[in-house]
């Protein structure tokens, strides 16, 4: 799956979980950039992304993400080629 396609799908999940229909995320987006992205919604985001893409993350992987781009890269690495 291409990065842009994954980003598009992740954006839909962000809008749904964060209840913000106009939210547009980019690879550079960080939690500090999005008001609704707090600790509990972060958990909801991870769970919904795992369900949507049928992937499982490791605790260390999540801790290393610095922005949405690194999250997208991690998702893409787990998806079948």
């Amino acid at each position, binding site marked *: 799956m291409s990065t842009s396609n994954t980003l598009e799908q992740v954006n839909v999940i962000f809008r749904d979980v964060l209840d913000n229909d106009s939210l547009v995320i980019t690879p550079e987006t960080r939690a500090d950039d999005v008001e609704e992205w707090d600790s509990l919604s972060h958990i909801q985001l*991870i769970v919904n992304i795992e369900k949507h893409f049928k992937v499982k993350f490791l605790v260390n*992987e999540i801790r290393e993400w610095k922005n949405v781009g690194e999250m997208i890269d991690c998702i893409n690495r787990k998806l079948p080629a």
Partner: protein
Amino acid sequence: MKAGDNFSRVFVVDEPVYSGFIQTFHDTNPLHTNDEFARSMGFKSKVMHGNILNGFISYFIGECLPQKNVFILTQEISYSNPVYIGDQLNFSATITEVHESVNVTDIKYKFSKTDGTKVAFGKIKIGLR
């Protein structure tokens, strides 16, 4: 807790539960307080508030699971049949998925009357700290 684990509990919607709910939340809609009105809507008698069941769910999550370090992230409920005063409800919950990366557990549950009639069902997502 792991996927497939099952938990059950029996709850009764008795007078103290019913009147306590009304005293606390003041929902005195005639469907819930007037037998005649409820019958005019096609029910057997006054219908218990659906959110009483959410109180049972809160008790189950907070008090009946093997771990106390839990909090509810999301909760969904669908109602399929009315509950009347005095009904005994069998609550059954099953762990459907565990998200180890964020310590989140998905649970599906249902409430049934003693004759097997399902009255409500749904999903709960809990976090563990």
